[in-house]
Every structure is written in structure tokens, then in C-alpha cells.
């Protein structure tokens, strides 16, 4: 419904999202489905209602379209900026929403057929509905009157928001602010989850967890839905293409290695090892594997809790999937000399002794015994989210911990295989986004995000959803211009080669996924060039400056900064500060030297 209004505003040349009154909204809801499809169709074809208006581009302050604060929504904006620039997220989201749309139109066709036979809803929402969500799903044949699940709406609204941002960037014009109010998206979130209702400041972490969960669920819905209509899969591209959903090459390789390690372990383990896989992991079976749940793929890691009875020394292992790692803040003066990687490893990889009144009930000894328990990481995700535990609940309410914690740009991997390998670890992590919390308390503070200007190589690697002709390459090329600088640059260190970059360099003539021109990030070249020139004048290597480009995203204001500047922001401030990193996003890089 919001898109519709946006569309109107776009036509009038000035983008501003307004909620007039409830009545109008309701009216729009009736007209909504058909018009929305129409609009979306336009966008997929690269159609821009206001194209004729963008004649002379001028230098804008912000390199990308910005999100305005609609009243205590900086928590939302910081998370949205982060997700937009998190490696591969935007691209994968596009394909998820796109697949859903395709499947839905298929379903509605089937439905139309059956309704012509006079059996309106019957055959579809028939016997197979098990949970409420699958019920929602079945009904989301959804181009007519039946409501979609709230979960799916949130995902779609998120994608729409990114489309709007993209369109703003495409349509850059003089004196325009390029600002978007994410009201429609926020509304969808609030409708789906009451805890985000009201205009109070919220916990950015809570929102992030909720959104990722939401999208993961949408991925599952897609999978489920496709299984309900096996006859549809044959026709749609979903099944054949989902295998090809592009995974960063470096990540693919990692996965394979992890598996080898696991099987070795199982062989070596001499003990009665019962592996209780809790819920989703591994139990998913082959059907699930057919579909690519990118949230699970990129954000999910696996913890391994290993308990050893000190009497019989039998080992019990328990694996659990996780989406972020809470990091306790125990930084002391002695830690200034310690490698930050070690600080994080020690905070996450823990061991404890179960003793005294907290003894362990050993299934082998059938009694309470002392035991040692280790928590390690069998697999760390491609995008690792570290949540610094800055908010502690005390008797006096929630209090913020302002203690300094280092935020290294590069962090050694602490998954179990890497810990065993020591110096020759298999992967490392590079910082890609930081959400900072500024202020003394959760309710009164402000959130800003620092994001690394992504190279978006995943769009070129994408083998699904290619345009029928390569004609859209022209627009895509344009939007990729900025990133081309990166690609031709030979990599400097032989160890930390980011493989996908090389891969792209050799294939740079390949057509780029057309989702780039739907919701991709399009940087304002002039702003970027200015920033690079500026740092060049300050004696910096321009190549380096491009590699090091970060964006400081503070609601309506987004400005490019260098990684040096970022490091200065994150560095220890004598006397302390309440501007503290809160959520750290690290991207996994697989070392290539060991082949």
C-alpha cells in the first residue's frame, strides 16, 4: 500500500512518504494488489517514472540514499544500513522475494484454473496445512484477497525499501535530499511484532535478530510452499536455480573443509559420544537442502558444547545453531597489550568445571560427578555477528557498560578447526559493519552504523536470474562503475587474497545479475571520487583509499570515511566515552595459501 503512494510522489518529483489517514489507507488496500504488481513490473524492467527529470547530475553530499529518522528510529536505520551493505545480503534478499513472487503467481494461476471449475479455495488450502504459518502460506497465492503472512510482508517490505533507496540513487537530482522515511517497513514490522510498537527507542540487536529470523522463516516458507506444489517446481525456476544461488567462492570452499574436519573428529572420538543435534541443524534432510536458506547459510554458526565426566571421562557433545555470539565485556588494563583476536577468542571459547553443588549427572556413571564443559564453535558463520554485552540487567534496571573493547578490523577465526591449527588457521574475519550505541542508557541513546563499502562482487557471480538479453548490462555496468576500480587491482598480500575478487576480475565481462538494477546499491560516483581525491591530497594511496572506503551512516547523513578514520573512532579514548561499538559484523575470508 505504501509503494502506491510512493509511486505517486515519485511522479510529482519529490519523494516523501506520508500517512494521511486511516481511511485512505483502507481504500488503497483494495486497489493495492493489482497496482503493486504493475509497479513492481515496471521496476524490474528498469523503468523509472521520473527518469526524464534526471538530466544533469550534481554532486550530492551523500554517496548513497539515506534514511531519515521518523522519531526514535535510529535503531531501525542503523540495522537497515548494515543489512544493505552486509556482503551478499541484499542480493540474496532480492532473489528470495523474486522467487516468492514467481511462485505466488504460479499458485494464483493454478487457483484461477481451479476456481473456474467452481472449487474456489478448496484444493489449495485443503488437507496439508499443518501450522498457522503454512496456512498463511497456502493462502498467499495472494494476488487477490487473501492476506499474506505477516512474516512474508515484512520481508517484502524490506525489499521494497531497498528498491526505493535504489531508485532514489538512480534518480539523483539537483537539490534533492535523497532521503527516505522507512515508515512502511516499520509499520509492517510493528504489525508483525508488537514489541516494536510505540515510538520508544529500541534495542538494535533485538531488531536485527527479529529481522534475520523473519527472513529465515520466509526462506522456509518458500521451501515449504514449493513442496506443497511439486507440480509448480517443475515450471518455476526455483528448484533448478536455487542450487546455483551464488555463494561466495571462498565460503563454498570453507564449507567443504568444515565437513572433512567433522568426519575426522567422529572417527577419532573414542568415547561414547552422543551427539544430540538440537532442532534444525543436520536434521533437515535432503528436501530442505534443495532450497537455499541464505540466512541460515550466511548467519548461522554451530556451537559445540562438550562435557567430559571427570570420573569415567566419557564425552557428551551437543551442537546448537546460533545467529550471533554474545560477548561479555571483561576488558581490564592488562588487556591493552593483548591481541584483540585473543580477547574475543577467550571471551567466546569458554570452559568451565561443573563441581560442588553444580555437579553433572553422568549417563554412564548414573550419578552426579564433576565434569568439565567446553563451549567451542564447530562452524562460525560467513557473516559473524558479535553482540557486545553492553546492557546488563541489574536491580536498578538495565545499565550500560561503557568499558572499552577493541574492535579489530581483522580478527583471527576462533572456530574449532582454526583453534587447533594455530598459526595456520583456515580462515580469518574482516570487519564489515559496526553498529555503535551512543549515550548512557538504552532508552536515551542513539545508534549509528559504520559500513564497509561493499564490492558487490556477488552480483557478477550470480548465475541465476540472468536477463533474457544482455541489454540491461548497460545500466548494470553503470552502477558497477565504482566497483570496477577494485576489481582490476592486483591483490597486495598473498595470504589474504579474497578469492571472489580475482574470480570476478577474470569474468568481468559476464552479465551482471539484474537484481543490481532493482534494489542494488548505487553509489554517487562524484561523492566517492571527491572523498578519494581528498585522501589523495592528504598523501594516501588512492587504491588504498578505495579499498578502505567506509560509510558513516547516521540517519539522514551518510559520509565516506577511510578505515583510518574509522579506527580512530573505535580506538580507546582516555577518560572513557559513551560512544561504544555494540554490534560487530565480520565477514569470513578463507585463506588460500594452504592449497
Amino acid at each position, binding site marked *: 500500500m505504501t509503494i502506491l503512494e510512493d509511486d505517486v510522489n515519485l511522479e510529482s518529483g519529490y519523494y516523501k512518504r506520508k500517512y494521511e489517514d486511516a481511511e485512505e489507507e483502507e481504500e488503497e488496500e483494495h486497489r493495492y494488489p493489482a497496482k503493486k504488481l504493475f509497479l513492481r513490473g515496471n521496476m524490474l524492467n528498469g523503468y523509472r517514472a521520473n527518469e526524464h527529470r534526471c538530466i544533469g547530475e550534481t554532486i550530492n553530499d551523500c554517496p548513497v540514499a539515506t534514511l531519515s529518522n521518523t522519531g526514535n528510529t535510529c535503531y531501525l536505520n542503523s540495522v537497515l544500513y548494515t543489512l544493505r551493505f552486509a556482503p551478499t545480503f541484499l542480493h540474496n534478499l532480492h532473489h528470495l522475494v523474486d522467487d516468492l513472487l514467481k511462485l505466488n503467481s504460479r499458485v494464483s494461476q493454478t487457483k484461477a484454473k481451479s476456481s473456474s471449475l467452481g472449487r474456489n479455495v478448496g484444493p489449495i488450502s485443503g488437507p496439508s496445512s499443518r501450522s498457522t504459518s503454512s496456512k498463511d502460506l497456502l493462502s498467499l497465492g495472494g494476488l487477490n484477497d487473501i492476506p499474506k503472512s505477516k512474516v512474508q510482508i515484512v520481508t517484502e517490505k524490506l525489499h521494497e525499501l531497498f528498491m526505493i533507496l535504489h531508485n532514489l540513487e538512480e534518480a539523483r537530482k539537483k537539490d534533492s535530499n535523497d532521503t527516505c522515511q522507512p515508515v512502511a517497513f516499520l509499520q509492517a514490522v510493528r504489525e508483525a511484532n508488537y514489541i516494536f510498537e510505540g515510538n520508544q527507542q529500541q534495542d538494535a540487536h533485538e531488531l536485527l535478530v527479529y529481522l534475520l529470523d523473519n527472513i529465515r522463516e520466509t526462506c522456509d516458507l518458500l521451501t515449504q510452499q514449493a513442496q506443497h506444489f511439486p507440480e509448480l517446481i517443475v515450471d518455476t525456476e526455483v528448484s533448478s536455480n536455487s542450487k546455483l544461488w551464488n555463494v561466495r567462492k571462498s565460503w563454498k570452499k570453507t564449507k567443504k573443509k568444515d565437513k572433512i574436519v567433522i568426519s575426522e573428529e567422529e572417527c577419532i572420538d*573414542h568415547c561414547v559420544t552422543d551427539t544430540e543435534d538440537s532442532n534444525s541443524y543436520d536434521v533437515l534432510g535432503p528436501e530442505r537442502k534443495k532450497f537455499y536458506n541464505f540466512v541460515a547459510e550466511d548467519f548461522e554458526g554451530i556451537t559445540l558444547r562438550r562435557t567430559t565426566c*571427570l570420573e*569415567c*571421562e566419557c564425552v557428551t557433545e551437543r551442537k546448537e545453531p546460533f545467529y550471533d555470539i554474545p560477548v561479555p565485556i571483561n576488558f581490564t588494563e592488562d588487556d591493552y597489550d593483548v591481541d584483540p583476536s585473543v580477547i574475543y577468542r577467550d571471551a567466546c571459547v569458554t570452559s568451565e*568445571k561443573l*563441581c*560442588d*553443588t553444580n555437579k553433572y549427572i553422568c549417563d554412564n*556413571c*548414573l*550419578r552426579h560427578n*564433576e565434569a*568439565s564443559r567446553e563451549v567451542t564453535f564447530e562452524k562460525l558463520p560467513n557473516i559473524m555477528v558479535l553482540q557486545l554485552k553492553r546492557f546488563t540487567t541489574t536491580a536498578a534496571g538495565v545499565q550500560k557498560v561503557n568499558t572499552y573493547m577493541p574492535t579489530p578490523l581483522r580478527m583471527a577465526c576462533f572456530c574449532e578447526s582454526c583453534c587447533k591449527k594455530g598459526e595456520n588457521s583456515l580462515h580469518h574475519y574482516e570487519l564489515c559493519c559496526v553498529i555503535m550505541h551512543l549515550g548512557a542508557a538504552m532508552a536515551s541513546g542513539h545508534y549509528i552504523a559504520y559500513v564497509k563499502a561493499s564490492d558487490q562482487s556477488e552480483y557478477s557471480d550470480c548465475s541465476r536470474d540472468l536477463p533474457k538479453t544482455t541489454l540491461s548490462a548497460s545500466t548494470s555496468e553503470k552502477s558497477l562503475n565504482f566497483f570496477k576500480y577494485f576489481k582490476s587491482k592486483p591483490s597486495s598480500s598473498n595470504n589474504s587474497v579474497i578469492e571472489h575478487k580475482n574470480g570476478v576480475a577474470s569474468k568481468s565481462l559476464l552479465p551482471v545479475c539484474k537484481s543490481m538494477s532493482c534494489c542494488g546499491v548505487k553509489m554517487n560516483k562524484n561523492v566517492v571520487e571527491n572523498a578519494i581525491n581528498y585522501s589523495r591530497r592528504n598523501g594516501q594511496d588512492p587504491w588504498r583509499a578505495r579499498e578502505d572506503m567506509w560509510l558513516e551512516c547516521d540517519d539522514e547523513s551518510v559520509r565516506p570515511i577511510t578505515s583510518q578514520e574509522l579506527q580512530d573512532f573505535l580506538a580507546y579514548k582516555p577518560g572513557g566515552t559513551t560512544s561504544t561499538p555494540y554490534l560487530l559484523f565480520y565477514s569470513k575470508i578463507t585463506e588460500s595459501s594452504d592449497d
Partner: protein
Amino acid sequence: MSTLKPGGQGGRKKVQVSMVICEAEEKRHRSGVNALQVDPMLDRLYSAGRDSIVRVYEHERYHQSMEHHTDWVNDIVLCCGGRNLISASSDTTVKVWNAHKGFCMSTLRTHKDYVKALAYAKDREQVASAGLDKSIYLWDVNTLTALTASNNTVTTSSLGGNKESIYSLAMNPPGSVIVSGSTEKALRLWDPRSCAKLFKLKGHTDNVKALVVSRDGCHCISGSSDCSIKVWNLGAQRCIQTINVHTDSVWALLATDNFAYVISGGRDKKVIMTELKNPENSITVCVEEAPILKMCFTADHSAIWVSTSESNIRCWKLPTEKHFKGEASMPTNPISLIQGGAAIKLAVVLNDKRHILTKDTDNNVAVYDVLRARKMEDLGPINFQEELKNRFKMVYVPNWFNFDLKTGMLTIHLGQDEVDCFSAWVSARDAGVKDEPDQKVNYGKLLLQALLEHWRGVDPNIEPKSYFSVPVHTPLIFSEVGGRTLYRVLVGDTKGETETALLNETVPSWVTSSLEDNCTSKFIKVQFYLQPHSSVPSNLLKQDRHKKPDRLVANDFIQCRKVAEHILDKFLGEGGSGSPGGDAEPTPNATSNNGTTVDQIELTCNDQVLDPAMDLRTVKHFIWKSSADLTLYYKLINAK
């Protein structure tokens, strides 16, 4: 639910009552054997079992059991030339025994956690004990054996400085040095004469579970969970040798008198003898069927007794010069075997909450009756899960006891914590005490009455106390919940004078008060709604029945027939409305004025027709399957 007062023991921890279901004489070890001692004079072998019993074998034949511990016996030492035995247990006590006669002389309660290890300095008749409470206490054996009921104080010196749980301890015979091994992964040494801390030896990378010190106190050998054996020069305070002959944790060590050979055993089930001067020279003495827990030389030192985490104890010949030179091969069979018994490994309480189906280490399945504290049936090596399915009965009785299998026998715990032992009321007929379906008995109370039947503290004037009796050999244990044992006595011994006096102090007030009053006020209630089925003609119902239904309350063991009677009486008839009788008084008039009988009322729950003999808690648990208030529907069948 229950309105019982707390234990009434003031600030003391709540006391629970436990009993062990066992045979009159448990001749065989039920589970692993943690420690061994040989008395060469009487040709006796003492073995400390995980089943809490120290057994004595004379000339390799079972002689007697020394029962007083209530948990695993972890270590024993024979002292005073074989007259006394000291034992350490996970019940946190150290006990002093008259070894010849086999009775417990005194109990030392100084430790606060499992006592894992003992060390003995023969020349000074000194014993040290250590455990998971990180402390080491030194005891003078002559003082310990002289303790009497009136002279019951003993002084002990404590060796401090340990930071972690101690799993092994050793002292040399002259008592000049004592070594401890712990999860700290280091050895710590003291001079027992001055109690002075000497030093710490680092090198192992895991828990140290076995130690030996040479007679002169110059050398020490340690066995660790890091799979290695280390030889230490105590004068130089360093490791002089690391022996890696095992592929898994080393749990037991012995050294020959001259410290020429070390014999080691562990988790890899192997016993290996290694020449210390030349560690390449090692011979596998035997391969056992389970991880090795302890070894002990026979009187002539030509063979060793080996105990494992299973109950058999075998004697193996040690290799001689000949074997080390490769001139002879080691025998593959033990020279002697003390047969152990089977431990219960799996137990499931049946739905009647009275019988327990068990499976032991020999895969034999058996049925136990908790109320009678005895085994009812041996079913042999049948399929356990199948038998469990066959014995399924759709009847629900609340939990009223806990149990554990740590000793390899069933130990039943009655308490007042999460599981209230008075929560199970059943009809006297179901319990098999009287053929009166309307009289209710309480399982917990029945069992407590039986257990304390012989105790003089119970007023003998109370009418026929017990319908059941439990075997007189049944051990009765009073302990703090999740903690230390206060008192252990056999059911048949409770009539003794000293025992009565001790019981008067120990029996918690929640037990005594329950034995005296008849607990009827403590019935558990079920709340439920009664609704007419849509087929019930409204003209049959009284006017107020069309309104929102009242919430009814009844005892959880009320049968559906009683509810039907209530419906007939109150809903369809002319009487006033109210709850069905909490005290289950039978309704004499089974026909109401319009000629309907109880048998014509059909109750359903979740669309399932209810058997009139089924009680409400069973309906709630098996048919309603929710913690929310139960809703029952009624309709008339064959109505005129």
C-alpha cells in the same frame, strides 16, 4: 498442592528418607570396584565397591560384607597389620572398621564433598584422606581406633594450598612426604611431619588420577588423564621421564618394591608393566574387559589383582625376567577370578507408580515393587522396550518418589521437595491392601510406616500400622537432600536401643507427623467444568444449567462414575447444585426422579468416551493432556 509444614528442623537442610532395594546378602559386587587391599597374613582380599559395600574374600572365597557407606567407596587402606580398615566414600565420610570382624567403628565427617583418595604411611600408622573439597586431612590411626561413643573427638591436621579437586594421593611408608594429584594438572607436595607445603610439580596436561611414592621419598610416579606416566625426581623437583605406553587415560599405578618396574592400568583396559630404567621394555600384563580402576599385589608379589569399572575382579600373573627377555609369552587367562554381579543400568517407573521395570548389565529385565522393597519377578534377557509397552496401563498416579542407580541397586528417595512423597492416593483395592474400592491409601505413608514399623519411637497404640512389610535387611538412610548422609540403619535393627535413640534425633518431623495423623486433608484436587453435550435435551436440565458452567473441584482420584452420579443428582435431578463430594461419599439413589440411571450418563473428554472406573487425574493426564482446567461433557444414552 500439599499443605504440609516444612521439615521443622530449624535452619537445617531438609532431610529425606531413602531405602535400598537389595538382597539379604549381597555376596557379589554390583558395579565397578574402586579399590583393593590384600591381607597376606589371613590371605584376605578386601574390595571397595561402587555399590557402597566393602567385601572381604578369604582364600578367594566370599567371607563377608562391610556395609555402612551409602555411596561409592572410593578407596580403602588396610592398617595396623590388618586389624583395621579405613575407607573413603562419595557419601563424604571416612570410616574406620574392625577389619577382622567387619563392623564400622567410627565415621569421620570432616570432608564436605566426595572423598576420593587415601594414603597410608605404614611406619607411622598415619592415614591421609583427600577429595573434591580440595582438602587433605591427616589422621593418626591409633587415635581413630581408640574412639568410643563418649571419647569421640579427634584432632586432624589439614594440608592446605590445593586449589582444585583432588583425585589421587600418595605417601611413602615412613611418612616423610605426601603427594596429591588434582584437576590442577600439577602435583603438590607436603611434609606430613610438619604439614609444611613443599612445592608443586607441573608437567601433566590433564587430571592426575594415580600416584606412587618411593619408600625413600626421592621419587614419585604419576599417571594422568593426558595418557602419560611421569617419573619425578623429588629432590631435583623435576620430571625425569615420561612414559607413553597407554593410548588413553592412566588411572592406576603400582611400583615394585625396589622401584625397578611400574605397573600401570587405565581407560584403555590394559595393564602394562614397564621397566623404569628402560621404558622401551614394557609388557602388557593383561587386557581387561573394562577400564582399569585399581591394582594390588598378591601376597608373594608374583601376581596382581585387577579391578575395573565392571564387577569382576581378576588375578593376573606378572611377567618375570623370562618374559622381558622374550623367552616366554604371557598367559592370556587370569589365574583367578572373583565373580561379580550385575548392576541395574536402566530403570523405568511404571504408570502405577509402584512397580519399576529394570534392566541390568547382563541385559536381564526384572520387576521391582517399591512398596514391598523387593524384586517381584525376573524376566530374563527379554526386550526391555517391548516389555515396557506390554506393561503400559492407562492409569495416572502422581509421582511420589525419586530413585537413583548410582550403586547399581535401586535406591528410593522419599522427600518433601519437588516430589512430595504423600501425593499418591490410590484406592485400597488397587493398592491390594483391602478389598474396599472406596477407601483410599497413601503410597508414601504406607512405605514410611513399613520402613519404621519396628522403631520404638512410633506409638504402638496407633491402629494396625502397616499393610505391607519390607524386608528387615533393607537399608534405611536419612540424608540431607542432595547432600550428606546423616544416619544409615537396617529396617530390622531399628528396634535396638541405641538405634531408637539415634532415630529419635534423626527422623524428620514431616515423617513423624505423617505417621501419627491420617493425612486426609492433603488430597490433591482437580478443577474441572461439566458441560452438557449438544444432544442433551434442554428440558431435562435444570434452569441454572444453561448459564456459564461452574468450576468444580474434586479429589484427583475421583472416578468418572462419581461424576456421573453428581450429574444425575445435581444437574438433572431436583437437588441443589454443588461440587461432587470431596470425600467421595457414595450416592445411594442411583436413579433420579425422571427415571434416568447413572449408567445412562456418558461422559466424554476431547470426544473420547470415558470409562466410569477411570479417575479424574487419569482423564486429565491421558485424555485431556493439558494443564488447563479439565472440561467434561455429558450426555444421555438410551434415554427414554
